[in-house]
């Protein structure tokens, strides 16, 4: 565990302790399991976002992807009686394809990631709204979804499945990012694309790979989120969720300049964000302050991080 992750963990524990002191129900099993569920929901796609940020890019389209894939997914299940494994496959492949498209536009057409995914944000949102004619879409009276519903929103051994899915996804992605050749290339390309190219790395492929993974995880998250709310309003579903993901990744130590970050950090960042949202409700802070609390704590975290980094640097110089 690096210093950044350790600092974040301390922050999580301190905020958790303060909240518990103010209202012990924060630590009740029910509340913890609810939070675990939400951490699972938001963690999966934050990891994808983190990978993209490590390459020096950004994925602003995540929330709109949820809306588009979400309405199609529900429509397939509720109105077209498609078997759920097929619908699931469709959404996952759809996510991968959207990611591949972004990767292609970034690496082949040489467009800036911000521009590509900003356009994605607008296009997919519009497509989702057009698809349902702006109507909220729900499962209505669809049947035969018990196993999928259980998979995406049930519990195993008392633990919410989204959280278990996050555990599996982060374990796999931690190996990919920190132990595999692809992960090493991600860091190399993110930190110094030129040097990576001179080392014979197919930098385009590596960058595109990050977007594809991000798209695939967005597809998976779509399914989890759809079963959390059970209905999708195409104009509001997943709106701004890309910002939660970016915030989690940045809190977790991903640098927007690229080449830095860890899976553990991103997961801890997600945990912190969810705790912040939970404590607003648990402490009875007015809902209207929700975002302000989040922004304030992130800002404090960033300032503290900067200050610690500066002190570490001064320490090194003093020793030299």
């Amino acid at each position: 565990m690096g210093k950044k992750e350790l600092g974040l963990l301390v922050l999580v524990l301190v905020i958790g302790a303060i909240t518990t002191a103010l209202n012990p129900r924060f630590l009740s099993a029910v509340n913890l399991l609810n939070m675990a569920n939400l951490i699972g929901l938001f963690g999966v796609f934050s990891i994808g976002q983190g990978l993209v940020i490590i390459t020096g890019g950004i994925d602003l389209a995540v929330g709109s992807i949820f809306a588009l894939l979400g309405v199609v997914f529900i429509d397939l299940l509720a109105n077209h009686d498609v078997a759920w494994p097929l619908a699931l496959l469709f959404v996952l492949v759809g996510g991968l394809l959207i990611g591949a498209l972004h990767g292609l536009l970034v690496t082949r057409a040489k467009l800036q990631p911000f521009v590509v995914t900003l356009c994605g944000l607008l296009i997919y949102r519009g497509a989702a709204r057009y698809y349902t004619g702006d109507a909220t879409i729900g499962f209505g009276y669809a049947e035969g979804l018990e196993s999928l519903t259980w998979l995406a929103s049930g519990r195993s051994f008392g633990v919410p499945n989204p959280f278990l899915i996050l555990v599996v996804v982060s374990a796999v992605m931690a190996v990919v990012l920190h132990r595999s050749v692809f992960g090493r290339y991600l860091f190399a390309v993110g930190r110094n694309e030129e040097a990576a190219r001179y080392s014979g790395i197919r930098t385009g492929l590596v960058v595109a790979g990050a977007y594809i993974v991000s798209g695939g995880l967005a597809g998976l998250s779509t399914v989890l989120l759809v079963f959390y709310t059970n209905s999708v309003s195409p104009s509001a579903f997943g709106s701004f969720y890309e910002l939660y993901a970016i915030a989690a990744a940045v809190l977790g130590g991903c640098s927007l300049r690229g080449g830095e970050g860890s899976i553990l950090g991103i997961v801890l960042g997600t945990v912190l964000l969810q705790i912040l949202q939970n404590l607003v409700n648990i402490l009875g802070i007015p809902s209207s302050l929700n975002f302000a609390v989040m922004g304030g704590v992130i800002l404090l975290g960033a300032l503290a991080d900067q200050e610690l980094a500066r002190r570490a640097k001064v320490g090194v110089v003093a020793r030299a």
Partner: protein
Amino acid sequence: MAAPLLELDGISKSYPGVKALDGVSLRLGRGEVLGLIGENGAGKSTLMRVLGGVVRPDAGRIGLGGRDRAHLTVAEAQAEGVAFVHQELSMFDNLDAAANVLIGRESLQAGPLRLVDRRACRARVAPLLQRLGADFGPDAPVSRLSIAQRQLVEIARALSVDARIIILDEPTSSLTLSETDRLLAIVASLRNAGTGVIYITHRLGEVVACADRVLCLRDGQVAGELPREGIEHAAMTRLMIGRDLQALYSPPAAAPGDGGLQVQELVTSAFPDRSASLHARPGEILGLAGLVGSGRTSLARAMFGIEPAVGGTILLDGKPVQIGSARDAIARGLYLVPEDRKLSGLVLDMSIAQNVTLPALAGHSRMGLINPASEMRAGEAQRAALRIKAPHASVHAVTLSGGNQQKVVLGRWLSLKPRAIVFDEPTRGVDVGAKGEIYALMRGLADRGVAVLMISSDMEEVIGVSDRVAVMHEGRVAGILGREDLSEASVLRLAIGAQA
């Protein structure tokens, strides 16, 4: 001559392990052009940094504007009218010429907003550019200006602050011959206007053309001074070198073999209407000389697949190879040690081991997962073999000195199976001790049967290390010199396009 504008007396500056300046004295009068010459690393830049207030000398006296000081600050240097025209131009190429000249001193409009008065700015800059004979106006965007034109903008900036001392640092390294002539004329006009000019260059011809006096530095000391009538090539070379260039040379162990790296009629995007051919044989070091911008680096990038060639053939050991990317080149044992190791060579915040294995991770991984032990072994092996000064291969590359960083770049290729290696400016920014080690490594590679192509702008290096030298001029190979024909004069003649 009246009282000197500038008088440096006994300036010394030491860095850990290096005495960069050792009692250097220098005098510059009004309306005088002082040529400052010396090899790379002789102390010219350090001396000028002292003058600019960037480096604080350990000892000595700076007499400037009628006052003696032990050291200057940047602000004091500017206030005393010291202006630099840098080797690597530092401009805002998203702004126009006038904005660049007046940056930080813009004319402002009256009124509460204090907006920039563009018209007034341009009116202030236009006469300066006119005086320099510029063929562009103050509203020309800098991004559209050539290197020579940008230099005029920098000189105009110096004039706009009424600089009394202008320091030109390698001003012609990227200029064509006619542009160089124009610049020399401007230097002459500055002198006539009473400005003191310090002209730093490697090009002795320019010194002959414009300097009133020449000061030569060598190893941090003044090697000698030549008055106007004594300025001629042989005398300057003697002062600069002070020893025999041939001493660096160690001969190959065996006669060069066949095959190696061969390019035939290679066309690069930098010179789409020219082509270059050359042949680095296994067992020899082929030097590749030429002025900056003569197409050497483009050639290297084409050979290594960074910017694939537009036309022509690359042969390795006699067989034509298709190289469309660095990956292709590496797969065939053709490697490049790039010119800018921080930008293109290394991922600075990765460890030595990680940098060494970056192009060859397949050999240190199984099913896509890296074996950290194997990677560390490879890093340690190169750290020991190349005597990289670091306690361990897990040390980050950013903490290493230039020479040791260069060894890391080299180490990554040595851990593979090289057939040909292109070195682009292998010792730029490398201290003297490490230079010798890198030359020995290059010779060792050649003796192992590797074809070595060394691009260098350092004349001492080109002449001292190469078995043969190919000289490029404007995109084509102007000539190839054998060891017996090698001299500074013969290389330079080919480089500037004169007939051999």
